[in-house]
């Protein structure tokens, strides 16, 4: 269980990114965090694993206050926080397998990682995860040879091999086409269900958030302005989160199958990658939850 208490982040420029956030994420809950650009979504999830240092407040993961940890303790705590990034953030010149195994860095010693001598159980788990997402045939490909959807699946494996207690997911679909976006979101949700894992997913796409999350939290200017079920996102609620706009189209398409990129007009980098995830073998697609 993740408990966030009066979390404040003030950047050195003086900008108040988070103005006292209180939030509880129970075990096994997939929560979507929505809000306009600059609302503090990214800052909030980065405060949890302290890629951004919080100014004040407390963040407790199963009782441990992450904000108070020393550098060494923080390293140990980060192992339990899997993170999936916008635009994948794979190390491009490392192979798929090396990228996945880098999720174990917190568990192995320096020389073992330097010589890529990971324990057999880690290698086995890496193969198992890559098979699960349908990429076991690409272990020795360099990460930059993969398509967007494939890269994000490697990113998911890297986070899961950490054996995390919580997934922090930052705009997982920001540069993917609508179909791949749905596949990735579906995969994340399924994996969370399989492992009873809770997740915080930052996402611009309201329709996707409604489709795949059990709970939606709306952030505006560093404050929680909505916290409730996906069905509660009425036009008035969306107006409080994002500001005045004709929300009719978004609302209609919310549950509809043709939604996707309509609702996210502030993510311009949607490269059309239509045939990314079409693999010859039906089995792999099924395994990856792509059917």
């Amino acid at each position, binding site marked *: 269980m993740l408990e966030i208490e009066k979390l404040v982040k003030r950047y050195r420029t003086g900008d108040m990114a988070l103005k006292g956030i209180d939030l509880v994420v129970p075990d096994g809950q997939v929560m979507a965090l929505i809000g306009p650009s600059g609302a503090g979504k990214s800052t909030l999830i980065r405060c949890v*694993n302290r*890629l951004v240092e919080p100014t004040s407040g407390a963040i407790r993961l199963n009782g441990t206050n992450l904000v108070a940890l020393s550098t060494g303790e923080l390293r140990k705590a980060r*192992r339990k926080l899997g993170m999936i990034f916008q635009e994948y*953030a*794979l190390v491009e010149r490392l192979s798929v397998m090396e990228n996945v195994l880098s999720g174990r*860095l917190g*568990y192995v010693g320096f020389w073992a*990682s330097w010589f890529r001598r990971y324990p057999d159980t880690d290698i086995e788990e890496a193969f198992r995860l890559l098979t699960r997402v349908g990429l076991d045939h690409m272990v020795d490909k360099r990460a930059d040879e993969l398509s967007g959807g494939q890269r994000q699946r490697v990113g998911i494996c890297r986070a899961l091999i950490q054996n995390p207690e919580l997934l922090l997911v930052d705009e997982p679909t920001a540069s993917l086409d609508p179909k791949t976006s749905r596949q990735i979101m579906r995969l994340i949700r399924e994996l969370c269900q399989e492992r009873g894992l809770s997740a915080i997913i930052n996402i611009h796409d309201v329709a996707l958030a409604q489709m795949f999350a059990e709970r939606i939290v709306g952030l505006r200017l560093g404050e929680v302005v909505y916290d409730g079920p996906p069905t509660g996102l009425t036009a008035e609620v969306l107006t409080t989160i994002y500001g005045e706009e004709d929300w009719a189209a978004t609302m209609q398409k919310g549950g509809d199958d043709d939604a996707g990129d309509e609702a996210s007009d502030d993510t311009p980098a949607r490269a059309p990658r239509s045939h990314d995830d079409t693999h010859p073998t039906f089995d792999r697609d099924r395994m990856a939850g792509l059917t």
Partner: protein
Amino acid sequence: MTESVVHSPRRWRKPPLIASPLVRWGLVLAVALYLAAALGTVDVNWKRVYEGLPRGWQFVAAFFPPDFSSRWSEIYDGILESIWMTVAATVVGVSLSIPVGIGAARNLAPAPVYYACRAILAVSRSFQEIILAIFFVKLFGFGPFAGFLTIAFATIGFYGKLLAEDIEDMDPKQAEAVKATGASWLQWINYGVQPQVMPRMIGLGLYRFDINFRESAVVGIVGGGGIGATLNTAFERYEFDSAAAILIVIIAIVMLVEYSSGYLRRWVQ
């Protein structure tokens, strides 16, 4: 009136770099005057130049034909010495510049380490190899050890600075993702930073090897050993034909290193 303005084609010119025409032309005039004055102080005695021409020609003619045989064992020893100086200095210099380069990258190092490493790089880069060589020859005496130190020291400045700059230009997201897994600092460097800078570093290492071989010929002239010492001896003995042979050997080796390092660098990308 307005009618004609609308119909005439509109003109556009690139705005001048310096807006005021007075300042602009004044600057041009000042530069021209200074250049003329400077050339005027170079006192060339054309008569003497003319008289010296045949002697110059004799000097050039003395280089031909190049004589490889009479001093071959000295040339051979000098070349071998230069090559080991180059190899040793490149390996040692690059190895030493890795920690300095990492420390001099603003996105990796805390401020005190950053300033200390930048200072090391600045010192190493502020002296030309000849000056360093004279210094090291005074310190350690004549011979290839002084030359080796000179080249290794100069390599630190070159390689460390370029490494630091390459690290500063890396993609922070890839490094951040590795940090988020709970990696230690060294693991973070090995997984998040090293893969990003490696191809360029290998290329620069080969390029520096290339430079170091040429430097090894120069430092010999001031007593740093190697082929440069052999070349200097040949000049002092007025054995211009042997000197020509040495120059040809140096050119051949530089070309060989140039082509092979170019080939290797393409292969690394």
